[in-house]
């Protein structure tokens, strides 16, 4: 019986056969909470996707998912889960152009290095390269090229730095790449593995970069270690970057949770408002013999239903906005705003379901508690007070 009565009162709170004012109030609150939840979900997806995008750039262009060292050992085995293995030599180099110079990390790689996986992370420009030149070709980033004011086909000088001295080399810019993340691009250039091998007479710092299916990363790493290789992951190689990304992600999630808590508190304000406006009606129901706990449950379920609907709508809104993020980011990236030049604006959207669930659950939990506290005011309503109004 209580359920039927409760159902009747709740449906009227939602404006079913009720007043337009009730409908407007409920819709306004659903809209407001949905917008907040939508913004939170969208922001979390944005931050996590960008972090993942930066991590991918570092893993695919910087160090590989795994960096395998093994002096005098053969190339590591192509285990299950391994996507690509490349021999890489690395050195630091000063690049000179007529207009400037720049210290970069230079990676010596084979032709097969820029495979589909890596090409998906960059835009490569080959331009009108001089195919007749016998000079060694280097691949610079557009960021470095802009700084040195060179283009494809221009000549540059390299000063390769090693433990045994400095090795000069005249080269030509063979191609330009753009990963979309200037922080990485500003310090990374590529040349042929053969060039490094020749210049350093086989004494160059070399290793194997291994790309793996991330779900198999730990298993592949363990297997290589068993085989006697020294193995590091991309985050060990880029400890500061990795830590910063993780800290940023945690901090942003923390802020989102705090905002969700504030939103939960705001929801209790809705229950306060409903009770204040309905004081006379509540007193009347109490006078007719309705129990306080029944009245409380009517307002509790009304507000929680509003919250639940808002959270669902808000989450869908956030997901919808995130799903349509790429065209917006591409547009912003194409405008080359100086203020955004060191932000990654070209990344795939990932959906951090655990983070979204955390935000939603915190919001629901805080609103349950705060609404319960707020509804204690129902107990203070005196049945006879309905005769005081009007």
């Amino acid at each position, binding site marked *: 019986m209580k359920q*039927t009565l409760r159902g*009747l009162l709740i449906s009227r709170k939602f404006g079913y056969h009720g007043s337009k004012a009730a409908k407007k109030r409920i819709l306004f609150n659903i809209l407001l909470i949905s917008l907040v939840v939508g913004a939170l979900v969208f922001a979390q997806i944005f931050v996590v996707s960008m972090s993942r995008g930066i991590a991918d750039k570092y893993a695919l262009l910087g160090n590989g998912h795994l960096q395998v060292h093994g002096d005098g050992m053969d190339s590591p085995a192509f285990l299950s889960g391994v996507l690509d293995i490349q021999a890489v030599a690395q050195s630091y180099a000063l690049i000179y152009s007529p207009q400037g110079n720049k210290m970069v990390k230079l990676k010596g790689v084979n032709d097969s290095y820029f495979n589909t996986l890596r090409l998906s992370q960059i835009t490569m420009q080959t331009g009108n390269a001089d195919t007749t030149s016998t000079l060694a070709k280097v691949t610079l980033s557009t960021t470095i090229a802009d700084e040195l004011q060179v283009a494809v086909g221009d000549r540059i000088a390299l000063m390769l730095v090693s433990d045994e001295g400095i090795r000069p080399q005249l080269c030509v810019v063979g191609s330009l790449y753009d990963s979309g993340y200037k922080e990485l691009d500003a310090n990374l250039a590529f040349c042929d593995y053969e060039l490094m091998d020749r210049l350093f007479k086989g004494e160059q710092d070399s290793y194997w970069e291994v790309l793996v299916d991330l779900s198999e990363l730990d298993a592949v790493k363990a297997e290589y270690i068993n085989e006697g290789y020294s193995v590091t992951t991309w985050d060990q190689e880029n400890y500061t970057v990795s830590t910063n990304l993780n800290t940023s992600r945690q901090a942003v999630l923390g802020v989102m949770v705090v905002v969700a808590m504030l939103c939960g508190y705001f929801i209790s304000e809705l229950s306060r408002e409903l009770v204040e406006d309905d004081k006379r009606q509540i007193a009347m129901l109490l*006078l007719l013999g309705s129990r306080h706990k029944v009245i409380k449950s009517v307002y509790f379920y009304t507000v929680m239903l509003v919250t639940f609907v808002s959270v669902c709508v808000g989450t869908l809104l956030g997901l919808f906005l995130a799903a349509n993020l790429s065209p917006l980011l591409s547009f912003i990236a194409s405008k080359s705003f100086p203020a955004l030049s060191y932000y990654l604006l070209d990344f795939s959207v990932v959906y951090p379901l655990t983070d979204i669930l955390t935000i939603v659950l915190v919001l629901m939990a805080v609103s349950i508690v705060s609404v319960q506290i707020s509804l204690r005011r129902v107990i203070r309503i005196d049945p*006879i007070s309905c*005769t005081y109004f*009007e």
Partner: protein
Amino acid sequence: MMKSVDVLNLDHVSKSFPATGQGGEPIQILEDVSLSIQRATSTAITGQSGSGKSTLLQISAGLLSADTGNIKFEGKDLPGMNDEQRSRLRSRSMGFIFQNSLLLDDFTALENVKISAMIAQSSEHVALKKALDMLKLVGLGDRLDHKSDQLSGGERQRVAIARALVNEPSVIFADEPTGSLDEHNAQLVEDLLFSLVEDREVALMLITHNLNFAGRCNLIYRLHNRHVEVRS
């Protein structure tokens, strides 16, 4: 005719309210008031404005606590009941009619009466039937789906009467039920109230200034100088 038995018994009841200013004396409203209300009888309480008539009604219905004295409702100690017991008593054994009909604004006439029956634990089907019957009885069979603001003052008061009687209570507490009505509607409501109270053998505790209205009751008490005296 049922045998007259006390439904409500007030024994040496006193009530005062705290003074509004600091250090003032409490305001004594009722002092040593004793009266009883019997089944199938109507009892009027008259007195000047501010004499404590409404306070007496609220104490009798358990809506306000007395400072001293005993109050028995159907033989049970009313002040000794907890909130839940008093709520149950109000829903099943008491009916209320006030000067302003106090209907739920968002609900139709039928729903206003039905909700009262549902609060008293009737199933929705039974509550609907009871509400329909009661509204037809008070002559509002053609106003079932009208909301409070679509009804006249007299019609609203008839809905309030239907709502008060739908759970077949032992007592109807009526506080100036015709106070806001014109003469014609007041007469209609008066006639309806007395005819239903007599037919259903319900006790009526009527608070009124109107001596003609009070004169139709079986018993009249007058509140004067905090005390109650029997007039007839």
